[in-house]
């Protein structure tokens, strides 16, 4: 029974936390139209739809193709705004174009819409980890006057870094594991959802902060 309850909690851990954060963020004027807000809305909507498809025993793997692509675009825009220099802007823009091209090649030739897109997710994770590490490096080189624990962007970046780094190996192997139809696959996705919850916790801390940097 406990396993069932826990299973139920884990199942919706990629939907409920972002939904709660959306309501909290919506109450703050400066966050309502922010990119992290749109990211949370996207995650909540797509994950909810994926869960509904699971309940009706339909294949929901195509949702993750859209999730990967649109999340990557939103987070790329977030980092363009965060770094705020012409060089990084063009670099991130270039990376986004390259990613889109590789995503299309992957979807058309390697991992079609009815399979989990491990390749795209890994590439997105790799690039986004790079951006988040670059942000940490900037903090080392040019420490801000504000205490880092009060910086919203620090916590958002930490959430993104945690989610995409820790899940990297899950993303790499998930396509193969789904094709093998492993019965223990559910534990992998529950691990993913737990890490998703960790990211939401970091986002929550960031939402509570008053300053951006």
């Amino acid at each position, binding site marked *: 029974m406990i396993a069932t309850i826990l299973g139920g909690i884990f199942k919706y851990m990629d939907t409920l936390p972002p939904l709660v954060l959306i309501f909290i963020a919506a109450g703050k004027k400066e966050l309502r139209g922010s990119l992290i807000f749109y990211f949370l809305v996207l995650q909540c909507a797509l994950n909810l739809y994926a869960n509904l498809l699971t309940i009706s025993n339909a294949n929901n793997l195509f949702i993750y193709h859209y999730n990967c692509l649109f999340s990557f675009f939103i987070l790329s825009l977030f980092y363009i705004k965060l770094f705020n220099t012409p060089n990084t802007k063009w670099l991130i823009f270039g990376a986004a174009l390259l990613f889109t091209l590789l995503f299309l090649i992957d979807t058309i030739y390697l991992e079609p819409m009815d399979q989990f897109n491990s390749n795209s997710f890994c590439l997105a994770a790799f690039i986004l980890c790079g951006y988040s590490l670059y942000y940490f490096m900037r903090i080392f080189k040019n420490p801000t006057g*504000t*205490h*880092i624990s009060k910086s919203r962007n620090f916590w958002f970046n930490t959430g993104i870094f*945690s989610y995409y780094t*820790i899940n990297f*190996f*899950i993303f790499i192997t998930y396509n193969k*594991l789904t094709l093998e139809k492993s019965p223990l*696959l559910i534990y992998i996705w529950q691990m993913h959802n737990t890490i998703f919850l960790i990211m939401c916790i970091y986002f929550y801390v960031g939402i509570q902060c008053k300053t951006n940097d």
Partner: protein
Amino acid sequence: MTEIKFVLGITFLLLLLTTFVIVFVFFYQKRFYFLKKEKQELIAKYAQLLLQSKIEIQEQTLQHVGQELHDNLGQVASLIKINLNTLKLEDTAGTIEKIESTKGLTRQLIADIKSLSVSLGSDRVKQAGLVKAIEVEVERLNKTRQFIVTCQVGAAIPDIDTDKATILFRMAQEILNNAVKHSKAKHISISINNSNKLFILAFEDDGIGFNTEDKRQSAGAGLRNLSSRANLIEAQLRIQSLPGNGTRATIELLL
């Protein structure tokens, strides 16, 4: 099953790695923030102490000027007035003598006024330098005829940064004031030397001395002020004294 375990194991390791990175960044930045805050506080404290020292120097100067005007200049001006009032034109020899005496007194008065005007200069230490400012203090004390104050200046005394010189001068004034008020000394000697970029300012008196431990533990602000000023300019302050054996105070500053 093995594959699942492997994936979970690697994921757990990545969780530990990311946690380590985040904690490291967090504590690094936190430490930087506190060091910056500490530095700002030190700068503010230094500026405040410097301002306080300048105000105290000015107060002491004004006190000295007031005393000089009353005790010295006022006396000389009165003597000039008496001389002029008691002039008898019919007594030529006497009048000439009094006029000569009055001329002498007037010259002395002008010299004393000039000397006072120098000490009224808004930043004596900046204008004249630390050594000259201390020599003026020595001269002032000697004029009271209550002490014999000597000042020995070594060769090649380098220029000291104005802010540090102001604080050193204030410390010198404080030490001299303590000797004047409490020591009952007859002789006070000051030596200013420079040895291997070490600036040494030493004071010695033949007064009654005191127990330095008792003074440190008591609530007196004098020694504490001296210590905090020395710490602020990274100078070493040593005070050696025993009851009945006089006092020796040394300030050493690495240039």
